């Protein structure tokens, strides 16, 4: 496995993982610690992640910035049930070739000052992976995965995606999210494939690494697929390309499938891991339209038989164990045989193809992040200039996803401008949550019931653009 600079062969893995465990032991973060791992897509990140998984540690997997001092607004806090904070550091430009051989070079370990006590889900013997849902603004919950189930789920993915030891798999999607980890990295590891991890989905870096690593399997998202279509090397021979399911236009799907190789959509969630994917042998028509049968052991049903679609429910043998809050208390503990509400609307075609229609509640997928409109409204209303805000997602899309328009009522006596508010958004919101347009109103339209009239606002937003 490699990140383009540092490489570790499968044969060297046990020794490297031992070194990392010993290093953590000397710093007091032994097998019984519950650390928060701030991981990045690098060989060092992969090794640290594997070291914790191999020793069955309970640990929280957080996105990292590669620095001890956080520089990224997407960073998530260390939960209060974590004993330590382990940061995977990015290699400095001048790092020598043997940089990866000393764990102290790439790990920063500190005790967590706000540690409260162990989480409730911390049974001895079964390592748990804690990972936050992708809701981006404060409403994230901590999902608990048993590590045994995590590997079972990865094994089902391996079956469905048909990865082999000869494959060269590239992962420009984060290995600290369930898609990159559970559907991409772990299945590739189980296959014994060569694995290339890459940070940030930067198209220029991707093309650089494509030339060097020559992947034949790629885990992408629709955004990266679009960039490759535009600038990629046509004729580069991918045996298989997997993309996360976020409504990719059929035309683009066909275009990509024609030019780059067998494209497969994979559908899943942070709670359930991979749920279903298209079958590689299905016709392009079917793969472009939707998803194939669920993965091994998974049962799917629609909540009712409404032709326009219904909420998709899922029974998964390798799904999550429940949710924790930041202090480590159970918010929800899954019962045996409990159906999971996906929050997605779906429709089953007569030929069995499952079509995901979109989110059931008022959230949108922007640049790979699930964004709840209510969260953005709350954040806007925290600004000193604003008394009330409503955010509308239009049907039009840009590169990040559906365009967002915010309607704001300024506080009495406050003079501000839409531009000034939008600049303030850049300071307070992650990039994918910043409304594309802001309009100031003196009042918001209401329905007779007193609820916000979102339909009228949607019409407004179309007229204003």
């Amino acid at each position, binding site marked *: 496995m490699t990140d383009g600079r540092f490489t570790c062969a499968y044969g060297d893995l046990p020794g490297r993982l031992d070194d990392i465990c010993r290093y953590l032991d000397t710093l007091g973060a032994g097998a019984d610690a519950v650390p928060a791992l701030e991981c990045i897509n690098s060989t060092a990140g992969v090794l640290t992640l594997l070291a914790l998984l191999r020793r069955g540690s309970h640990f929280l997997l957080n996105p990292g910035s590669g620095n001890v001092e956080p520089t990224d607004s997407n960073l998530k806090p260390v939960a209060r049930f974590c004993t330590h904070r382990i940061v995977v550091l990015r290699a400095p430009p001048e790092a020598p070739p043997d940089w990866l051989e000393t764990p102290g070079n790439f790990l920063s370990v500190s005790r967590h000052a706000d540690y409260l006590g162990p989480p409730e889900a911390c049974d001895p013997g079964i390592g748990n992976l804690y990972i936050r849902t992708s809701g981006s603004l404060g409403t994230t919950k901590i999902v608990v995965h048993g590590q045994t189930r995590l590997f079972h789920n990865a094994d089902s993915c391996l079956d469905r995606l048909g990865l082999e030891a000869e494959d060269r798999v590239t992962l420009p999607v984060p290995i600290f999210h369930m898609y990159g980890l559970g559907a991409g990295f772990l299945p590739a590891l189980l296959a014994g494939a060569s694995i290339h991890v890459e940070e940030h989905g930067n*198209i220029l870096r991707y093309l650089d690494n494509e030339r060097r690593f020559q992947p034949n399997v790629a885990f992408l998202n629709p955004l990266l697929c679009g960039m490759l279509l535009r600038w990629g090397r046509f004729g580069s021979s991918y045996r298989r390309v997997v993309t996360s399911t976020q409504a990719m236009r059929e035309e683009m799907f066909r275009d990509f499938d024609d030019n780059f190789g067998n494209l497969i959509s994979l559908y899943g969630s942070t709670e359930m891991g991979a749920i279903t994917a298209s079958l590689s042998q299905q016709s392009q028509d079917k793969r472009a339209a939707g998803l194939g049968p669920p993965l091994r052991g998974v049962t799917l049903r629609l909540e009712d038989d409404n032709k326009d679609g219904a909420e998709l429910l899922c029974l998964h043998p390798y799904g999550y164990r429940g949710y924790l809050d930041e202090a480590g208390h159970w918010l929800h503990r899954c019962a045996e045989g409990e159906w999971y509400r996906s929050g997605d609307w779906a429709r089953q075609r007569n030929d069995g193809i499952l079509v995901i229609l979109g989110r059931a509640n008022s959230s949108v997928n922007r640049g790979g992040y699930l964004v709840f409109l209510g969260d953005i409204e709350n954040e806007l209303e925290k600004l000193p200039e604003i008394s009330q805000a409503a955010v509308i997602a239009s049907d039009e899309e840009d590169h990040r996803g559906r365009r967002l328009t915010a309607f704001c009522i300024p506080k009495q006596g406050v003079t501000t401008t839409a531009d000034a508010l939008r600049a303030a958004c850049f300071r307070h919101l992650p990039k994918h949550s*910043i409304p594309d347009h802001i309009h100031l109103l003196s009042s918001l339209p209401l329905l007779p019931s007193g609820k916000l009239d979102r339909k009228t606002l949607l019409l407004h937003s179309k007229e204003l653009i």
Partner: protein
Amino acid sequence: MNTEKTENIVDQLRHIIADQLDVNLSVAEISPDTPLFEGGIGLDSVAIMEFITLIEENFGFEFARDELNLKPFENLRVLSEFVNSKLSGDTASAST
């Protein structure tokens, strides 16, 4: 090298980033020697894509597939030299 020309291109690139990219930076905040990505100006994957498109539109050329790599995008000074060589038809140095 043709310093005046590349200085001019650096300025145009700074304006493209400040005025046309959705990154909330002013021209004054963009130095020609700052790296463009993480640890520098911080263009994310979407912004990079838009930036490439805007360069093509503003300067009226298209990047060849082999030219899209990290090297010319190291910082605005390096990029301006690349753009300059593309504009003067000097493909030999453009493809470094």
